[in-house]
C-alpha cells in the first residue's frame, strides 16, 4: 500500500538539534505536554490553592519555548544509569583493592580523622541538601529535557552523599580506631560549616528551578566545592598517603562537568541574541550572580582553619580560592556574564 510505504518511520514532530533525530531526543521530547503547541486546552486539574500542573512563573527567566532545550550530554535514563553504575563499580573496586593493598591504613592520621572522617563526611550532608533542592526543581521545570537534566542531577547528589557513607564504613572496617561519628554535629554546629549549611538551606527554599541550577552549577560548585573538595581533598590527598578519596572525587567531578555544561547551555538558550527576553534574562542572571557569589565565597573561606590543620602544608586557601574564582570567572565570561557579576 503506497500510503504506508511512504510514511516516515520516525517521530516527525520533534525538531532535531543536529541533522538526524537522536535517541535522546526521541525518548525525551514532548513526554511533558506542551500547552503552547500540542496541548492547547491547558491543564485539567488545579490544586486546592489554584495552581496548575506547571507554572510559567516557576522561573524568573523567560523563554518562548522551553522544549527547545537539549542537554549537551545527550543522556537519557539508560545511559545515565549505565554511567553511574560504572562509576559506583569503579569506586567499589578501587576501595576494595586499596583495602587489600593496605593503602587505607597508610593514610596520615590527622588527614584520616579530620579531613576525611569529618570534613569530607560533612560534605555528604551538603550533597543531600542539593538532592532535595534538585528533586523539587525537576518537578517544576518547564520542559521534559530540563526536568530530566535536573532529575539526573538530583540522583548525582544522592549518589555522592551515599557513596561517602559507604566509603567511611569501609574505612571503619579496615582501620582500627576509626569511627564515622559526630559528622552531623559538625554539620549542625561547627562554625566551619555554617556558611555551607546556610547556602544549601537557602537553595532548599529557592522557588526557581533555573536559579537552583544556575547557582549550584555555575557559582557554588565552581567556587565552594572546588575549594572544599577538589582543591582541599582531591588535590592534597596523595601528599597525605591517600590516593583513594581523590579517585572517588573524580567521579563527582565528571558529574559536575556534565551539570556545568547543561547549565551553560540553559544560559546560552535564554540569552540568545534573537530572543526578545535576552536582556531581561541577563539581568536576572546577573542578580543571581550578585546574590550567590558572596555566599559561595563565604562558604569556601570558612574552610580556612582546615588548611591550618593539614599535616603537609602546601599552598593556602587564598591561593586555592583565587584559582577557583579565576576559573569560575572564565565560565561566566564565556557566557557573556562577566565583570558586573562578581567582585
Amino acid at each position, binding site marked *: *500500500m*503506497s*500510503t*504506508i510505504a*511512504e*510514511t*516516515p*518511520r*520516525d*517521530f516527525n*514532530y520533534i525538531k532535531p538539534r543536529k541533522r538526524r533525530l537522536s*535517541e535522546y531526543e*526521541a*525518548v525525551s521530547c514532548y*513526554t511533558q*505536554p506542551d500547552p503552547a503547541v*500540542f*496541548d492547547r*486546552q*491547558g491543564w*485539567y*486539574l*488545579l*490544586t486546592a490553592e*489554584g*495552581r*496548575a*500542573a506547571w507554572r510559567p512563573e516557576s522561573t524568573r527567566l523567560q523563554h518562548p519555548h522551553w522544549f527547545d532545550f537539549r542537554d549537551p550530554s545527550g543522556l*537519557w*535514563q539508560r545511559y545515565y*544509569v*549505565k554511567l*553511574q*553504575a560504572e562509576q*559506583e563499580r569503579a569506586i567499589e573496586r578501587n576501595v576494595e583493592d586499596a583495602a587489600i593493598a593496605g593503602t587505607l591504613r597508610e593514610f596520615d592520621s590527622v588527614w584520616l580523622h579530620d579531613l576525611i572522617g569529618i570534613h569530607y563526611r560533612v560534605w555528604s*550532608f551538603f550533597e*543531600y541538601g542539593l538532592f532535595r533542592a534538585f*528533586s*523539587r526543581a*525537576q*518537578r517544576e521545570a518547564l520542559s*521534559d529535557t530540563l*526536568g*530530566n537534566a535536573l*532529575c539526573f542531577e538530583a*540522583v548525582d547528589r*544522592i*549518589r555522592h552523599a*551515599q*557513596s561517602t*557513607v*559507604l566509603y567511611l*564504613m569501609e574505612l571503619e572496617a579496615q582501620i582500627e580506631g576509626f569511627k564515622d561519628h559526630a559528622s552531623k554535629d559538625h*554539620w*549542625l554546629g561547627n562554625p566551619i560549616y555554617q556558611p555551607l*549549611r546556610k547556602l544549601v*538551606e*537557602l537553595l532548599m*527554599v529557592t*522557588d526557581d528551578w533555573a536559579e537552583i541550577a544556575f547557582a549550584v552549577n555555575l557559582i557554588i560548585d565552581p567556587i565552594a566545592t572546588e575549594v572544599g573538595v577538589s582543591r582541599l581533598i582531591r588535590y592534597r590527598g596523595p601528599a597525605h598517603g591517600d590516593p583513594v578519596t581523590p579517585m572517588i572525587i573524580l567521579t563527582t567531578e565528571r558529574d559536575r562537568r556534565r551539570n556545568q555544561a547543561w547549565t551553560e547551555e540553559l544560559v546560552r538558550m535564554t540569552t540568545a541574541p534573537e530572543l526578545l527576553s535576552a536582556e531581561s534574562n541577563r539581568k536576572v542572571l546577573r542578580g543571581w550572580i550578585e546574590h550567590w557569589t558572596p555566599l559561595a565565597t563565604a562558604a569556601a573561606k570558612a574552610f580556612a582553619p582546615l588548611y591550618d590543620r593539614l599535616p603537609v602544608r602546601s599552598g593556602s586557601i587564598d591561593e586555592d580560592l583565587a584559582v577557583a574564582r579565576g576559573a569560575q570567572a572564565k565560565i561566566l565570561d564565556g557566557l557573556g556574564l562577566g565583570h558586573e557579576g562578581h567582585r
Partner: protein
Amino acid sequence: MRNPIEAHNRVKDFDWEPSYVEKTNWYPTKYKIPAKTKDPFRHLVRDYLSMEEEKDNRQYGSMEDALARGQASSKAEPRWMEIMKAVLPIINFGEYAAMKSTGQLIETIANAELRQGYLAQMLDEVRHTHQEAYLTRYFAKHASDPEGFAQGFRLRGTNLFNRAGRAAFETFFVGDPIEGALNLQVVAETAYTNPIFVALTEIAASNGDQVTPSVFLSIQSDESRHMANGYSTLAAVVSNPDNLPALQLDFDRAFWRQHAFIDPFVAAVWDYFQTNRTTCYLEKWREWIDVDWIGSYIERLAPFGLKVPSGYEAARERVPWLGHTAAMVAYGAWPLQFWRFDPLTAKDMEWFETKYPGWHGHYGNFWEEYRRRCDPRNGELALSLFPSLPPLCRVCQMPCVFPRIDISTCRIKEFAGKRHAFCSASCELFFDQEPHRYLGYTNYYELFDGYDLADFIVENGLLRADGKTLIAQPWLNQERMWTIDDIRAMRYEIRDPLRTQ
C-alpha cells in the same frame, strides 16, 4: 563486606531541621506523617543502579537484537498493533506525572524511610517514560503501519481518550502530595499495573507482539517497589487517627478518578483488539481488582479505619459494560482518532456474548451497522449512528455515556453561567466539593465546536504522509482507505452537545 542494614540506617540519617531559613510549604498537605516508619525500600543507590543497569541491558538488548532481526513487530496481528498507538502515549504521560509526584513527595514528606523509597521511584519513572517512548519509536520503525506511532505524542493532546488519561494522571501531582500518592501508588500502581503490565502482555504475546511484553514486564519489576511505597505511605497516614476523615475522602476520589478512565479504556483495549482471543477484561478485573486489591489489601485496612472506597460498588456494577460502551464511542468516532480499527467479526461477536451474556442485545446492532459503514463507497459515517458526539465530563473528561448509553448516568448542570456535563454522581460530587479545581482549562468543544470534521482532521494533523489519506481508518482494508475528500463529502459538523441553539 559491608553490613547492608547498618549502611541503610546511616544513609537515612541525612535529614536535619534547617535553622537559617523558614521552612517553606511548597506543596501543602493536610496530613500529619510520623517522622519514623517502616522502610519500603532497603537498597542503596549503588545497588539500585547496578540492578537497573542489568534490567536495561536485558530489555534493550533483546529489542535491538533477536526481536528486531526476527521482525517481530511486523508479524504481530495488525488489530492489536493498532491499539498500541493509543496506549503508549497515554501510559507514558502517567509515568511522567509519576516522576513529578515523587519529586513532590520527597520535598514534602519529612520521613527518612519514605524518602528513600520515593527517590528510587523518581528515577524509575524516568526509566518507564523513556522505555515507553523508545517502544513507540521502535514500533514506528518496525511495525507494518507506522502512522500513529510516529505522531502519537503530538496527537494525544486532542484525542478524546488520551486527554481523559491526561486528566486521570494529573491527579498524581496536582494537589496535596498525599492525594497524589493515593492516586498513583495506592490505586493506579497497586490496583491497575498488574492488569496492564502483566496480564495485558498475555494478550500481546498471543497476538504475535513479543516486544511489548519484554518492555512491560521489565517495567512491572519496578512497580512492586512502588506498591511498597504506597503501602508504607498509607500505613504512615493511617497511623494518625486525625488523618482519617480527609484520607477517606481523598481515597474515595482517587479510586473513582482512576477507575473512571482506566477501566473503560483498558477494557476496550483488552476485549476489542485481540484477534487470537484469550481472556476477557472482566475476568482479570475480578481477579486483580476485586479479589486481590480490594480483598487482600484494602479490606484489611478496615481495622485502621480506612474503608473500601465509596464508589467501589457502583464501579463493580459498571465494569461489565464500560469497555463495550467505550469501544462503541471510539469506533463510532474513528475519524477523530489516530489509529486504525478492525471491525468485529461474527466469531468475535460470539465470544462477546459468551463472555458478557446480554452483550448482543445492547451492542449487536451497532456492530452490524458499523461494518456496513466501513467502506467509504457506502457514503455513511459511523458517527451518524449517534445523535451527537457525547458530552465530556467536566471532571474526568470521559464521554458521558457510561455505563451504557441506555442507562447513562450523565447529568448536566449550570455553574457560573455555563452548562457542564458529568459522567456520574461521583464526578458531580467531586465538582461540587471543589469546583474551582476543574475550571482551569478550555474544554474540547470550546476549541472545536462548529468545526467541519474534515477541518478538524486537517488542523489536528490526522492525515498520512500523502496529505490526503486519514491516519485513522474504520477497517484494516488497505485497498480502500478513507481520504479527506471522503470525509468532506459527508459534511459532518462537530457540535457541542451542550450547545442550546
